[in-house]
């Protein structure tokens, strides 16, 4: 009897947490499909005729598709550059101990803790001098301030987990240093690499602050920035807001589900023994 009761309570507790987390998501998705009159109806309209008004308005008037494309460009660019710079840095820190290597590693981590708004104005002045305002490159580069530390922080341990003996065996097999990194170390750290890439991608995708200031024009806006433009008038177009929110949140949720599998696997592969 008793174990059954605790199982039941356990389940109830989990259910409660799930409701707290999932209800806002449900509300967002449901509202995006509701006719505007029913969004604030009380009691809530649990049953309604779904319609795509909100999405149509977001795409037509908010130019959401272009904004999403801009977001994709900036996110992919930031992740690619972050991995290209961060992975070799992490590899170096993991494999070679040199004077100050611990400090360098700590410096990366502290950079990650930087409050974004603190460097916003210097970055703006710099971007303006370089005539990079409204250019996606400026976001890609500035995101590295946060993406590279994240990648380094996650990957140093990943590389450390790959036994040195594997690389030495490859060295004796006649492989070059870079070949070893590419063909032995990289495949073995792919799960960790994926987690780092997705977390970095979520950061870049979600950023509002830098995008709002550095790419303000209609043609250069990223998706989260578009949301801000909805808030300027006398009435807030909630259907459109919710539809845009769904389009922005969708990829993040998918990304989260994708890394969940890797994190559950514990990020280890059991390479030797």
């Amino acid at each position: 009897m008793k174990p059954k009761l605790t199982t039941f309570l356990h389940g109830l507790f989990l259910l409660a947490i799930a409701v707290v987390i999932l209800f806002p998501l449900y509300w967002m998705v449901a509202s995006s499909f509701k006719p505007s009159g029913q969004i604030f109806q009380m009691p809530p309209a649990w049953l309604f005729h779904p319609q795509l008004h909100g999405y149509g308005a977001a795409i037509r008037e908010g130019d959401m598709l272009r904004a999403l494309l801009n977001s994709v460009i900036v996110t992919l660019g930031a992740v690619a550059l972050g991995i290209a710079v961060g992975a070799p840095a992490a590899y170096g820190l993991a494999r070679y101990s040199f004077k100050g290597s611990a400090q360098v590693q700590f410096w990366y981590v502290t950079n990650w803790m930087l409050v974004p708004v603190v460097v916003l104005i210097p970055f703006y002045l710099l971007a303006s001098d370089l005539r990079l305002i409204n250019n996606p490159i400026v976001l890609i580069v500035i995101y590295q301030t946060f993406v590279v530390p994240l990648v380094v922080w996650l990957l140093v341990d990943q590389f450390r987990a790959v036994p040195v003996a594997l690389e030495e065996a490859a060295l004796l097999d006649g492989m070059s240093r870079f070949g070893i990194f590419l063909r032995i170390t990289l495949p073995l750290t792919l799960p960790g690499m994926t987690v780092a890439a997705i977390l970095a991608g979520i950061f870049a995708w979600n950023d509002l602050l830098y995008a709002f200031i550095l790419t303000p024009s209609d043609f250069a806006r990223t998706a989260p920035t578009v949301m801000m433009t909805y808030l300027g008038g006398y009435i807030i177009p909630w259907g459109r807001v919710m539809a845009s929110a769904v389009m922005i949140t969708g990829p993040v949720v998918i990304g989260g589900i994708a890394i969940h599998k890797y994190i559950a696997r514990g990020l280890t592969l059991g390479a030797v023994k």
Partner: protein
Amino acid sequence: MAEIQIEGVTKRYAATEVLKRLDLNVTQGEFMVLLGPSGCGKTTLLRMIAGLETPSTGRILMNGQDITLAPPAKRDVGMVFQSYALYPHMTVRQNISLGLRLRKIDEKEITRRIEFVANLVQIAPYLDRKPRALSGGQRQRVALARVIAREPSVSLMDEPLSNIDAQLRMVMRAELLRIHRKVGMTTIYVTHDQEEAMGLGDRITVMNFGHVEQIGAPDEIYSRPANAFVARFIGAPRMNLINARYRAGANSIEAPGIHAPFSASEFSAPSGESIILGFRGEDATPGEAAAGEVTIEGRIDVVEHLGAQMEVHLRLDDGQEAVLRRPRNESWREGDRMRLVVPARNLHLFDAESGAALRTAYH
């Protein structure tokens, strides 16, 4: 096939000297075992031959050619790692063929070699599995196959049997010998297990604290240890070493319960009066001494039954201990007195201070 010469190699890490001006020759086709306690520098030496470490001073020659600073890939050496170091994301076949592909060996030859080594080490059924799906012994065989397939001039093995269980280790040891006889590769094998060293080596290099204590064939090292360290390290149970005094006037070596007549011509003079007298348990028999024999007497402290034999711990009158094994049908009891006889030719003498062997003649 190649010979290796190590000339005056020293290795320092910061303040610690791991190897001290070490010299060693490994001849063509030889199975050389580097034996010593952990931290004696044997693995460091192996890694320097592989090119994974660089000597601080000294030279390493392969077939007379200086390879001290050559990168690992240019040395034509293969290595079996203690952890096997199989590439986990590749199949057994890919593990073996990678080194061959990188050396631009043609596909037909690669296929032939894979087939040959797979049969040699009996892994043919597992060629398309990944290392994860193999047992420890099978991984061991794959690691061996990977090196043999490369046909390197020298194969290096770093405690390859230390990660598998005792029974399998015996099987693999015999297997290693069989393969070595068949392939005839120059092999340098690192272990801390003296029994493994005795069983495998054509010659053994006994190392301690970064220098060589003795180099020789297993039998030579066993019967003529160059010093007390080697005497203590080789053989199970280990050699009994008894602290004694050399009485020059009486021409004898004495300790309580021991009397050993010796003339000064049979050994070089010790640095002081103290001397270490050594004998192996199997050279001692219970009984009365005849001419030229040495007697050792004490009280039996502990008798351990080991199945076919029993291990008798003898305590000399001054508290020193000697251990020997006797057949199980003898009836030794704790508390009994026991008198042992050792032929003088089986007695070892070491300087108490330097540990160096003192006997000039064994007869």
